[in-house]
């Protein structure tokens, strides 16, 4: 390991999605990079976020399918969830990817420093008594679970996603505070595993950042699955008892359960790390940056969950790459954040890219929209999933947004991402016929219909 020498081309502080993507791209571009990580490279996403949740969600899918397989002619008996086995499956996925990532970073000759770093000046990061000088510094310290004022997460009966991911049992009942992506995904897992689940969300809908049509379809599906929710009502307090928790809402209603998951968002990791002292502007914990992820201090950048853009791993990747290319003088194109695909991996999945109908109208577009019901889609009928693909477009113009609900629709958003970002019109897509029978046909049908040539569209 390098001693605290330097100067490096780039010192990256934090080895999560944003930090390591930046380090990898910079190394590829011939730069001399040090990556400082206090825990494990891969960060939240690999160890406590995207990957472990999606492993749980896959086990949940298998549990549902095993339970329901008789309707498809497959005789089976569901005998319950083996929690230790779920964890060992999940941990094996993580450790495999972790090994791959660590090897990759090593192969690119990036210097990895284990330890907690602190910004000690515009181009200087200190780890213990080592000092790392860099022509550029990239802040990528990520985020951690937030709570509400006065609400203490005890890790036992009141837990965060970090705890929920290593829980040693399937709780009999759970209250989930927060109906955003993380809350909804855990609700889906636990319900599939057999728990009674109630989500409490202060805003009027689950997944409040989604187009309202997506939220409503998810709510309908969750209702059918027996997932309960209290919408448009605020949490007031929680009391732990011998057997669990009693939650009081502001409307006076009380709910009890074995466990409460607090999923009210994640806050940036910036306090006490010397950012402001070095001249970096921090606003409610978030580092402020321009479209190239530059802070106000020359040579200091910030990426990922630390900055107030979408908290998604692939946003971190994109920002990390952008910064490396910007430093290398490659003149990269700034990220269009509307064009970043979003997926909630619950059952059913919810996925979108571009803007909602409401936002498109606000921006003054003359909007046309079309919802294609998955009931008309052969593959969705085979999977026995319900939902829709909704396309928002400018009249006689480009596609402005795609919003989808249904099992497995997350994979369809990659196509929608190209359509949105390349400013395609429904007619551009309608000229091509999608493969039959796939779920992607539903997107194709919506485009055909918007282009004035509906095929399998039932009114």
């Amino acid at each position, binding site marked *: 390991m390098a001693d605290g020498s330097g100067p490096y081309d780039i010192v990256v502080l934090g080895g999560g999605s944003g930090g390591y993507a930046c380090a990898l791209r910079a190394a590829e571009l011939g730069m001399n990079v040090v990556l400082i990580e206090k825990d494990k490279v891969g960060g939240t996403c690999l160890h406590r976020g995207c990957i472990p949740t999606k492993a749980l969600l896959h086990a949940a899918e298998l549990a549902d399918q095993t339970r329901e397989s008789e309707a498809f002619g497959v005789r089976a008996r569901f005998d319950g969830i083996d929690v230790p086995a779920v964890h060992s499956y999940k941990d094996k996925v993580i450790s495999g990817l972790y090994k791959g990532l660590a090897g990759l970073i090593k192969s690119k000759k990036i210097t990895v420093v284990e330890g907690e770093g602190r910004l000690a000046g515009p181009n200087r990061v200190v780890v213990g008594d080592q000092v790392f000088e860099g022509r550029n510094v990239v802040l990528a310290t990520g985020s951690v679970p937030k709570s509400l004022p006065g609400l203490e997460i005890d890790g036992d009966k009141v837990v965060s996603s970090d705890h929920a991911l290593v829980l040693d049992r399937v709780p009999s009942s759970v209250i989930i505070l927060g109906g955003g992506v993380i809350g909804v995904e855990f609700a889906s897992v636990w319900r599939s595993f057999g728990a009674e689940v109630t989500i409490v969300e202060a805003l009027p809908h689950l997944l409040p950042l989604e187009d309202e049509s997506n939220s409503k379809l998810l709510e309908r599906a969750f209702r059918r699955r027996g997932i309960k929710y209290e919408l448009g009502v605020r949490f007031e307090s929680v009391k732990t008892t011998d057997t669990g928790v009693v939650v009081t809402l502001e409307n006076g209603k009380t709910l009890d359960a074995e466990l409460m998951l607090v999923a009210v968002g994640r806050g940036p990791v910036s306090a006490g790390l010397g950012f402001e002292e070095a001249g970096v502007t921090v606003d409610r914990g978030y580092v402020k940056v321009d479209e190239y992820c530059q802070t106000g201090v020359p040579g200091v950048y910030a990426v990922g969950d630390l900055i107030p853009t979408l908290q998604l791993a692939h946003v971190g990747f994109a920002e990390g790459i952008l910064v490396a290319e910007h430093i290398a003088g490659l003149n990269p*194109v700034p990220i269009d954040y509307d064009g970043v695909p979003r997926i909630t991996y619950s059952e059913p999945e919810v996925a979108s890219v571009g803007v909602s109908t409401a936002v498109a109208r606000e921006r003054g577009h003359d909007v046309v929209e079309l919802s294609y019901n998955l009931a008309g889609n052969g593959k969705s009928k085979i999977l026995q999933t319900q939902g829709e693909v909704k396309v928002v477009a400018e009249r*006689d113009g480009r596609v402005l947004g795609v919003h989808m609900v249904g099992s497995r629709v997350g994979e369809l958003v990659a196509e929608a991402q*190209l*359509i949105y*970002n*390349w*400013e*395609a*019109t*429904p*007619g*551009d897509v*309608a000229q091509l016929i999608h493969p039959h029978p796939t779920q992607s046909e539903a997107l194709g049908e919506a485009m055909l219909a*918007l*282009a*004035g*040539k509906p095929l399998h569209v039932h009114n």
Partner: protein
Amino acid sequence: PPQVGRVSVLAKPPVRKLAKDLGVDLSTVAGTGPQGSITREDVQAAVAAPAAVPYQAA
């Protein structure tokens, strides 16, 4: 009768995106592709030839 979605500027979507990234207004570009469509090369040529771009004071 319903009409097939027509694009005012004949260029494939990735070429439209390229033009946007390079700051080229497609309505000022003459297409040399099939049926007068604007190709990637046409867009790149428009960037290279300053005459095609409206004059801007420094």
